[in-house]
């Protein structure tokens, strides 16, 4: 029947420019859609609208100076990006940091992850059309931002990690604030489920949409929650534990379904896990130095270095090639968003414009991270 209809009704495919200025693309991403009516035939991704050549800029900066640039990659997990660079340099120079530093870094990581996921949850609802979730997400994010601001001095580009430790010691209110947050968030997380996750319209919009199989997910190099929604186990915190992740107890969340709703559930469950990590650590912050003494001028020995961390979006990698100078010879950031975005065409094949927006939201891209 459908074939008969398509034979009889001649339709014409047309192109639609989605972006660079479009509310659904979360920044300046340009999608060139080939459409048949509302049905998507092809998605071309056009990047480069916010390319700032951060990798090149790193080549003229010392290792200390690189750190603040990583804040500007994936600005929602800036702390985790900072940590990747610091871990890389510390590993290369065999700097052993104290337990206190490790625990604080881990806690900050998880706070960052929650704040990123909370923002994602709000924006997810907004993309689907439930505008109120945005403000509910921001309520929790605001609390975390206050914690960051009090301890690190900034809300978004914290720049709290330095090579060999942390910039400042924890603020005296930190523990109290984190405990308040845990208490508050434990009450609010079930509300998220009631408001959005269980909502019949929301589920219908996500279930079975944007399917990508486990094999395809691996083939496209997906990572982070996006891949774990397809059942790929890829949590760097488990595979290559860094900081204090080897001493906390948490689960790696995977769902086998591979659709948008699975990716949604992964992030919601990850918030629960992050909360449990915070709970385990908040009372056990060891005493000690918050900063280990390092040389004034840091020079990495000649060679290649790689450090992977699990950012809120997935596998964030820093690759440094050093020729023994105080500047790196080449820096490459492996951004999780870029790999995840490539699968968009596969995921949205034959679906509708509204689905594309939903899928884009469940991939959770941050465009400055993709373009660098």
């Amino acid at each position: 029947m459908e074939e008969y209809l398509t034979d009889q009704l001649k339709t014409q495919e047309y192109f639609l420019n989605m972006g660079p200025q479009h509310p659904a693309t979360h920044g300046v991403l340009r999608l060139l859609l080939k459409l048949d009516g509302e049905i998507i035939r092809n998605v071309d991704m056009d990047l480069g609208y916010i390319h700032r050549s951060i990798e090149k800029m790193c080549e003229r900066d010392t290792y200390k100076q690189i750190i603040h640039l990583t804040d500007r990659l994936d600005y929602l997990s800036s702390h985790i990006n900072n940590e990747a660079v610091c871990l890389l340099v510390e590993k290369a120079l065999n700097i052993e940091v104290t337990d206190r530093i490790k625990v604080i870094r881990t806690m900050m990581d998880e706070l960052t992850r929650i704040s990123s996921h909370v923002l994602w949850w709000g924006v997810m609802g907004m993309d689907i059309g439930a505008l109120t979730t945005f403000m509910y997400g921001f309520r929790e994010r605001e609390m975390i931002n206050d914690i960051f601001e009090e301890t690190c001095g900034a809300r978004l580009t914290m720049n709290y990690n330095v090579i060999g430790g942390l910039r400042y010691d924890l603020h005296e209110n930190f523990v109290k604030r984190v405990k308040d947050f845990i208490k508050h968030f434990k009450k609010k997380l079930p509300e998220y489920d009631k408001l959005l996750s269980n909502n019949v319209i929301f589920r219908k919009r996500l279930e079975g949409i944007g399917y990508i199989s486990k094999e395809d997910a691996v083939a496209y190099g997906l990572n982070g929650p996006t891949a774990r929604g397809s059942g790929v186990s890829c949590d760097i915190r488990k595979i290559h534990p860094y900081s204090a992740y080897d001493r906390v107890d948490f689960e790696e969340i995977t769902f086998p379904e591979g659709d948008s709703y699975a990716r949604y559930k992964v992030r919601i469950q990850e918030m629960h896990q992050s909360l449990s990590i915070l709970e385990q650590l908040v009372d056990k912050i060891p005493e000690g130095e918050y900063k280990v003494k390092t040389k004034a001028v840091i020079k990495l020995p000649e060679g290649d270095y790689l450090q992977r961390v699990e950012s809120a979006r997935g596998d964030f990698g820093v690759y440094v090639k050093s020729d023994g100078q105080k500047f790196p010879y080449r820096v490459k950031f492996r951004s999780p968003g870029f790999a995840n975005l490539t699968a968009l065409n596969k995921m949205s094949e034959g679906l509708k414009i509204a689905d594309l927006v939903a899928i884009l939201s469940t991939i959770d891209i941050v465009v400055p991270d993709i373009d660098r």
Partner: protein
Amino acid sequence: MILNIFTDIHNKLLEHMSGGAAHITELILIAAAYLGIFAILGLLLVWLERRVAGFFQLRLGPNRVGPFGLFQTIADALKLVSKELTGTVKADSMLYRTAPYFVITTALMALSLIPFSHEIQAFDINIGVFFLISVSSVGVLGIFLAGWASNNKYSLIGGMRTGIQMISYELSVGMAIVTMTVLAGTLQISEIIEIQKDGWLIWKGHIPAIIAFMIFMIAGTAESNRTPFDLVEAESELGAGFHTEYSGMNFAYYFLAEFVNMFIIASVAVILFFGGWLSPFGITDTIPFAGLFWFTVKVIGVIFIFMWFRWTFPRFRIDQLLTLEWKYLLPVNMVNIVLMALIVWLGLTL
């Protein structure tokens, strides 16, 4: 029964001019009054929406201009009036310019049927409800034309979605109204309210009336293009949908008409289910103009439910929208009409 309260004005006019001239003057006066009502209603509802949205979203909403921010929308309207009217180069300029007037005219025509109280109703014909459905379905044309004439692909998609959505949900609104007219036994709006003096229709018709009310609320939300049925403008997908290219006052016409349409839908719900301007249990029947108060309270109550929907639910996808209408609402509606007819026939009304 043209505006009983203006009988004095009518007589005054007759003193000064002939019957025909007086009639025309009167019509113009009423039209001007309704235009005023239209503008004020629209602006007040926009303010109410923003305020309510604020409280839903843990904000305060507009609270700077005037008391409680009441003049905020007036300031916005002034800004819109002063803006340049823009459009795309290859737009069908005639249709592009006329499209907003379709929407605004139909909204105005539908408004004339609404009885604000016993005394205030501009136009009360014996096929009132039928006239209302017919008039409000013309409004789609304005949106459709805007989508087509803008020469913008986003607008076009929005316009096409409107066509599909409006034609589908017109059916449900119509059939929910038919269910209630089976119970009321008349199409004239004043009579529908009259027979509710001994009990509102939602009470009299009990189960089928409640089902009809729910269907009417869902379909009414879709008719007024509000979330979860706002696919027409779906800002996260289509930018602004059919009015992407409109600016200034042309945009404001759409904006105001959308809110007045919501008011009309809410009024129809109040007329058909909650006794229009009648007070509960007839407690203030003797006070003149108390009807206006009760009508406003009821309409705002229904409008609040619409707003509650809007600030809670995510948006449907176009195929789900059609599934809801054709697979759920329509069959339920049809069974409901038969049920209502049976109940009326067997005299099981309360």
